[in-house]
């Protein structure tokens, strides 16, 4: 790992993603006394409480007061501590939007927000607890790094990188268990670098978070069923985004689908669209996600299916995109 630090490997198949986070944070805490942890009555639910059990004097449960928590973290970071904060994603983003903007990002402090229950993963709680526009907020804020890991292994990597990299971080993970996409942590996680989960030449599916597993399943299915060569890119770091990987996908495959557990406005799909637009090359393109609405109530996997961001929905979108027309510019070959 970066920084010459040693870590014990976690078993992401036996633990929920948040449990992996809690364990990783305790491990970091053992090595770095400047790490402190804050939560707003969600110690148990977000698993940041694991840190509190191990280091009670470095743990602050502020009650149900997220704005205060974020302001406190800014003060602690200014004084040299490294605060990790956890709440549900909706409350760790929009509920504290101004504190995030002014206390964390504007002052560029070294605070790390680990937001759980992201996307529609707390599906039964309904729209007050669905975080489907958090990327849009966080991505628009200067100075902050935004990561949405695909599974527990990637979460462990992201949490460590957040510690090792100065500046504000927002890492969005899910409630409960995630489908595992890696065999272990050693797949070469690098901040801001997409991971190619499947090679492919016909079309690229770009995904983050829980959609990565779904995109891989769709690619494997389409390879067998349609003989399609589907590239799958896991863009775990939404900001700063891996422009080169996207540009390469445009050039190599000329068809791109983005799948995310988020609104199509302001999230990963929007970020990819911006790169495509500025690159200036014709590319068939489709954003999958929440289509400018609030999501239904239900189990996470059901909602993903309704939204069309599960493997079936992605496969269907790939098939449709293979039929899409786009304008090839005359100089396409020169520019490659």
């Amino acid at each position, binding site marked *: 790992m970066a920084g010459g630090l040693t870590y014990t490997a976690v078993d992401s198949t036996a633990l929920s993603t948040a449990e992996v986070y809690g364990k990783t944070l305790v491990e970091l805490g053992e090595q770095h006394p400047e790490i402190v942890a804050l939560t707003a*009555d969600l110690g*148990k639910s977000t698993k940041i409480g694991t840190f509190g059990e191990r280091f009670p004097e470095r743990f602050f449960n*502020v*009650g*149900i*007061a997220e704005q205060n928590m974020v302001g406190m973290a800014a003060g602690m970071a200014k004084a040299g501590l490294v605060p990790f904060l956890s709440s549900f994603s909706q409350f760790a983003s929009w509920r504290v939007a101004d504190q995030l903007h002014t206390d964390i990002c504007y002052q560029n402090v070294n605070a790390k927000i680990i937001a759980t229950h992201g996307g529609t993963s707390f599906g039964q709680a*309904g729209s*007050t607890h669905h975080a489907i526009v958090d990327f849009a907020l966080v991505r628009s804020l200067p100075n902050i790094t935004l990561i949405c890991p695909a599974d527990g292994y990637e979460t462990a990597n992201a949490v460590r990188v957040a510690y090792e990299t100065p500046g504000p971080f927002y890492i969005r993970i899910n409630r409960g268990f995630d489908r595992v996409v890696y065999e272990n942590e050693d797949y070469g996680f690098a901040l801001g670098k997409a991971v190619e989960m499947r090679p492919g030449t016909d079309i690229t599916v770009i995904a983050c978070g829980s959609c990565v597993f779904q995109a891989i399943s769709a690619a494997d299915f389409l390879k067998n069923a349609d003989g399609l060569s589907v590239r799958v890119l896991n863009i775990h770091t939404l900001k700063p985004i891996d422009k080169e990987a996207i540009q390469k996908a445009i050039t190599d495959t000329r068809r791109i689908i983005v799948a995310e557990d988020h609104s199509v406005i302001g999230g990963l799909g929007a970020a990819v669209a911006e790169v495509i637009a500025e690159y200036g090359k014709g590319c068939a393109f489709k954003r999958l996600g929440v289509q400018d609405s609030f999501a*239904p109530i239900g189990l996470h996997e059901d909602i993903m299916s*309704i939204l069309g961001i599960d493997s079936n929905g992605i496969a269907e979108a790939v098939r449709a995109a293979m039929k899409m027309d786009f304008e090839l510019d005359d100089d396409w070959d020169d520019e490659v």
Partner: protein
Amino acid sequence: MALTKQEWLALEDKAYQMRRLLLDTCHWAGSGHIGGGNSVMDMLVILYHRYLNIKVEDPAWADRDRFILSKGHAGIAYAPVLVDKGFNDPEQLKTFNLTNSKMGIHLDSNKVVGVDASTGSLGHGLSIALGTGLAARVQGKNYKTYCIMGDGELDEGSNWEAAMAMAHFKVTNVISFVDRNHNMIDGNTEEIMALEPLADKWTAFGFEVKVIDGNNISQLADAIDFALANTGDKPVMIIADTVKGEGIDFIEGDYRWHYGAMAEENYEKSKESLARHYEARKARAEKEGK
């Protein structure tokens, strides 16, 4: 007008039925906010069966009393009450929390008939209640607004912004409650973030405060009657001291039952406990009622 013994007994019966329906809903859904649902149930029952001026056949009636359940996670207690009143199809309780259901953990005012505000993000309700209260004043209407908050919820600063404004604007047509069940998710309120002296805080913010046993129907009636008779210019805050999980003995007062699973064995145990609880409640009403 003071509650008669007959009225008290009828409300106890209703509260028992509603606690049973809450339990069934929890059982159908597999899990639910059973702790905070049972602590607040007596408030919901007395409001919906004695005080709220509403029309089931015209849920959007402009002159209706408003009710805002600021602690929105108690939807599993609120939904049975609304269904029982006739606002929604009883079958909906059987699909509570299921995919594409109209009813999830936090009730959505655009999906569940009779709900005045979509809550669930804590610390919003009192401001909304203040808004409907001021709207009544501006429009010259007589309706009241009732608002129930959780005690842990009071940690949110937004409540205190609303409190300051409610006293400042002398909004006395809003009657507010704190469901003081002493517990939040991570533990006891005084251990996680101390609220006491809570009555003094509300008094200092300009409220007329009543501290009562919030699981006592008769005391609730007296407190609400007091608030309705209020001719002063201070808003009334009823601090309803309650038991989290009231009626289900093995979860009472245990913060770990904020949200719990209701599998078969616990379900049977809970039914028996609720039946015993009802008998004790009836005996109290018989003895103390007039």
